[in-house]
Structure formats: structure tokens, C-alpha cells
């Protein structure tokens, strides 16, 4: 039999159906994952994300009121069907006890950021003033920098960081979002 005369570079050469990427809109989602506090759990959850090609924007892990359980707060991105799969795949893990999808639920969320801002005699006062307005806290003072702690929801933190970037940021660390449902 003669070959099928498929043009070079055509996807028909593949053993798979090569699709172009999803055209659905990607949105940011916050998930809380309650897991058994056992070795390897974090690795399993992270491995799930990397192995299946899901995104992690931020990840926070810590114990809950029950020392046998930990709560992970994960901010991820994806279209609706990807998020649906992420939730299902998380639920499938043996040591995952519960997945809270904050898509529709009412929840509170906070993030803590430490930011080291460059200052000089001219800008110091202005930085301190903005810090005050945002109810942020100065936690360290150096001749050429201030380290500021800010806690808040995403929009507050982002706004503050945007303002600080005008002065020059010398260092930054963030905890990633933590979230709890209101009810």
C-alpha cells in the first residue's frame, strides 16, 4: 500500500490528536484543600498539579485547629473545565479529606506581604504616610530602606505594592493567599 501522502509537518503524523490550546477564558480561582497531616501529602498535591499541567500561582500550607489536619490554600488558574478537573483530581487523592472551591462560596481571604522599600531623606515621609493609610506596619528601619508588613485581600495588597514600586522595591516576600469560608 502506498503511504497516505500526508504533508510534512501535518498533525496527522502524530499518534495523538494534536489540538491547539484551549480558547476558553482562564480565570483565577482559590481552592482550599483539607488534607491529612501525613508525610508526602504536600508532594502528592504538588505532583498532581505539575504532572497534569495545572498552574499554581500561590500555595499556602499550615495546620488547622485539628492537628491531624492541614489546610492548603491554592490559587490556580484555568478555564471552567480545568478547574472542575482540578477539584475532582484533588478529591481523588486518598489523603485529601475535603476540597473547598471558593468559586461561588462566600469567603474571607488575606495575604501577608513583607516588602523592603528603598527610601532616602526625601521619600521616607511619603512612604510612611502611604503605609499609614493602608494600615500597614513598618517592621524594620534602615538608613536607606524600610521593611513594611501589609496584610489584606488581593486588591489592597496589589494596590499598595504598585504604589511602593514607584520608590523602588529591594526585596519582597508573600505568604500566598489564605482563605476561610464565612459559614
Amino acid at each position, binding site marked *: 500500500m502506498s*503511504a497516505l501522502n500526508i504533508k510534512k509537518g501535518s498533525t496527522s503524523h502524530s499518534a495523538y*490528536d494534536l489540538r491547539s490550546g484551549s480558547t476558553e477564558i482562564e480565570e483565577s480561582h482559590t481552592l482550599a484543600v483539607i488534607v491529612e497531616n501525613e508525610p508526602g501529602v504536600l508532594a502528592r498535591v504538588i505532583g498532581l498539579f505539575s504532572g497534569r499541567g495545572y498552574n499554581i500561582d500561590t500555595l499556602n500550607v499550615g495546620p488547622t485547629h485539628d492537628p491531624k489536619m492541614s489546610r492548603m490554600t491554592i490559587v490556580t488558574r484555568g478555564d471552567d473545565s480545568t478547574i472542575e*478537573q482540578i477539584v*475532582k483530581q484533588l478529591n*481523588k487523592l*486518598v489523603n485529601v479529606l475535603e476540597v473547598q472551591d471558593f468559586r461561588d462560596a462566600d469567603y474571607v481571604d488575606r495575604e501577608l506581604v513583607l516588602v523592603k522599600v528603598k527610601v532616602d531623606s526625601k521619600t521616607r515621609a511619603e512612604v510612611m504616610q502611604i503605609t499609614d493609610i493602608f494600615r500597614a506596619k513598618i517592621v524594620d528601619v534602615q538608613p536607606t530602606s524600610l521593611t513594611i508588613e501589609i496584610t489584606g485581600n488581593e486588591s489592597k495588597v496589589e494596590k499598595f505594592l504598585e504604589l511602593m514600586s514607584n520608590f523602588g522595591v529591594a526585596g519582597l516576600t508573600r505568604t500566598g493567599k489564605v482563605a476561610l469560608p464565612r459559614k
Partner: protein
Amino acid sequence: MSKQMTGAQMVIQALKDQGVEIVFGYPGGAVLPIYDEIFQQNDIRHVLVRHEQGAVHMAEGYARSTGKPGVALVTSGPGATNAVTGLTDALMDSIPIVVLTGQVPTFMIGTDGFQEADTVGITRPCTKMNWLVKDTANLADTIHQAFHVATHGRPGPVLIDIPKDVQFATAEYVPAEKAKISHYQPRTAGDPAQIARLVELMESAERPIIYSGGGVINSGPRASQLLRELVAETNFPITSTLMGLGSYPASGKNWVGMLGMHGLYEANLAMHGCDVMINIGARFDDRITGRVKDFSPKSKKAHIDIDPSSINKVIRVDVPIVGDVTEVLEELLRQWRARGSKTDQRGLSQWWKQIDEWRAVKCLTYKPSTTTIKPQYALERLEALTKGMDRYITTEVGQHQMWAAQYLGFEDPNRWMTSGGLGTMGYGLPASIGVQVAHPESLVINVAGEASWLMNMQEMGTAMQFRAPVKQFILNNERLGMVRQWQELLHGERYSSSWSESLPDFVKLAEAFGCKGIKCSDPKDLDDAIMEMIRYDGPVIFDCLVEKHENCFPMIPSGKPHNEMLLSADADAFKSGAVLV
């Protein structure tokens, strides 16, 4: 009444408590205490393999043919890494197996000790769950949990990594009934409201199709029984994936054959043209769907699966039903009967007429030969000569595997063992031994390709040692046939590294192992040779020299929809031509 014992003794006791009779394994420094205990008892039989991959595939073959979890025991480091392919295979095909690995002593973990590997790290993505046990007091409990996890919900492989000091140390044994009941209790009953929606869909269906998969087999023999009742009461046509063969009998009148990339013409067209699709325990694998966008465009789809993540993963469905196939079919039939449900007789008879027209194409027709053995012919003869026998079939991976699925008929579940999801060459020989050990009196045949077979041929030693009279039926085309076929059709006939060069003389190889070798190259001798193989009381390596350049059809080139199927290399073999659109 507390019972103190060493970790090694706990392993044996826990396996006994779990009803384990056979362990496939290979010793090494890190599991010597367990081997010492194996030596001192007679309840559990140990089958010494020749390579740890073989042990895991044997455990798979055992599990798939019995419905019970298979168990493998290997040492740390290389023993564990050799088990990785088998674990991944079992994960992809949802096979319940429990693999025990030895590990360096706890105080050495992290020091790059001799034969240390991060086994739980390496195997995390290829197990359903795994554990490193650091304290003997937790060992028995963990083993019981491991069996629970492997066999509940969607079955799969689990692994327990046991450091050597944990095997030596002493603690109290936790019996199975006292083990910490895992919170892991997946839902098995389907939602009756969703099932009611499916019943309504079935009543209104004009062109229905049942598409069943490996989940029916995993659910147990009762699921197959219920499936047969469902088909009998509705007169719906039924197709199945590679993994689901045997849940509905091949001789059943509603059987339209396997579907998918090398599935039957009638099965794929029925999937494409149906108006109601009932997926029972299958997962819309890409070898099944072809181009997702064009998959069965006009149908309403119901999907029964124990794994919620399978639902809407690839194909969005209208009626999702999460549950165990047995329980869901039980409820489905109950509702169907209680409502006095009727099918659309007129629609259905039209539909059957259409299917019969497709069947009349006889897509499995091939050009016969009187001089060379066509692989299809070899399988037709194997089928004819073993039909009705107490027979189990395993396969390797390649063209022969697809031909076996097409030309052999499976009447019952658990009779067909093949590597579907991972497509592991080297699966079939060890799997056949695992099956044979579980069913010593049955006829177990591995339908193999010569290239795949060589990947784990060392296991013939195991077959000899443990008197497993497995029949290795090698369709020897001296090619990596499936690769060659793709190169012929899709890569301009550039046969890059797809020839099996320097093959051994299989008959001499059989003699070297001490078993029987048979070679056959003439179609006229084939029946006698097959009978000789069947009658021989011991393992046989059957070198069946077949046509080298035969292609496996039908074929849906991937990325194509179901209605674009290649039927034959030979355009005039079919009135409708080579490519049907």
C-alpha cells in the same frame, strides 16, 4: 490479647489476614528479614521471578484473572525502580496490586546509602497511594489500609516501603478487623435521580449504543451478569473497549465488536451515529474518541463511572452517574422494570438494519494466503482450536495485540489480560505466568509479538521453575510491526529502526530454558502445530512465522473522527474503497 511480633512477621501475618496466597518477588538485602519469614511458613507461596518488572506484571495478571489483589515483594533501590513500569501499567488500567519494597534502615534514609532510592518519591505519581513505614507499630495497620485502598473505589496499585530496621523491630500486631478504618470510602451507589434520567433517555432512544469498558470487569462478575440482562431486556447494541472484552459475550447477538482505533467498522460507525450513548465503566480514552471535537456529535451521553474525575474529563456528558457499575446497573434495571419501560421498537429495528449493513462490510476480511501464515489466520485458527476450552489470553503490545482483540472471542470477564492504558511491551509473558499460577489447570496463552516478547523473556525461567505451562504464541513478523505500520502509512515508508534484527532461534531458546519449542511457517501445518502446543504438558514457545508486512485494519488514524476509517490496504477488497468517509 496483644500479640508481639517483628515487622517481618507482621508482613506475613497481615498478608495471610488479607487472604493472600501467592507473592511474586525477588529478594535483596533490604528485604532479607521478610524472606526469612517466608522461608519459615507454608501458607503463602512465593514465586521467584527473574526481574522485578516481571513480578509486578505477574501480580497484575493474577489480579485481573481472579478479581483479587495481586502482591509483589521487591528489594530497595534497583528492585523498587524495576517495579515502576508495572506500577504505572496497573495505575493506567486500574488493577489492584500491593507492592512491598524494602528500604535502607530509617537512620540511613537520606544518606545515599547502598541501594537507597527515594521509593515513595519515585512511585508517588504511579501509585494510587504509597507509604513509607518508619515505625513497626504502624506496619500492620498500614498493610491493611493498603489493601483497602487498592481494592476500593477505582482500583489501583499501592506501595509500602519498609525500612530494614522496621522489619527487625518488634511491636504489637494489629489484626485486620482492628485496623484504623480509612476515611477512604468512595461512593458506590449511583444517584437514583440521574439513573431515572438515563432510563428516560433509553426509552426514547432510536439509535442507542452501550459502550462498556474495563470498569465492568473491575466491578466483578455480577456486573457482567447485569450488563447481559440489560442488553437482553433492551435489545440495544453493545460495543466495548479493549479493556472491557468479555463482559458481554462475543457470541451474543447484540455484540457489535470492539471499538476504537483498531475497532470494528460497525462499532465505530454506531458510536458515531448513535443518538444515545451509554458509557458503562469506560473513560473516553483518546484511542477511543479519535478527534474529540467530532466524537459522536449527535448523541446524548450517559456515563457511569466510579471515579468522578473520569466524568467530563475528555467528553462532556448529559447524564453523569458516579458509582460502582454493579450497584448502578442493579438500580437501573430495577427502575427499568418497575416502570415497565419499553424501548422505541421502530427506531431500534431501523437502527439494527443499519448496523447489519455496516456488519455486511465484513471489515475484518483479509487477503488469505496458501503460502504464508497471515497473522489474522493464525489467530482465527487459535480461536477455532481453543474455543470452548477453559482458556485465558494475555498479550504483548503491537499489531498482534489488536489482531488478538479482533479475532479472538471472549465469552466471559477476567479471561483477557492486556496492557491497554500504558501499552507496555513485555507485559504479556509475565502476566501469563501470573494468570497460570492462579489457574493451574487452565489453558493460558500469551499472544505475543517477537519484539515485545524479548523484553521480558527471562521469565521463561520462572515458568519452568514453577511449572506454569504457559503457551507463548509468538506472531513473528520480524518487525516492530505496529511501528512499521505507522511508518508505512504516515512517515513515507521510512522504516527507521523498526526491524527486529538478530532474532534468536526461538526453538533453541525454548530448549535452552528446558521447555518445548515449536516453529511453524506453513499455513498447512498450523493446526497440527497449535494442537501440539495445547497438548504439551508444560511451557511452550511457539514461533509462528507470519507475513511480515501485514497491516492492522480497520484503523482510525489518530486525530480523525470515527467515520474516517481505513479499512484495508487493498482497495478492491471492499466495494466501498479504502477510505470511508
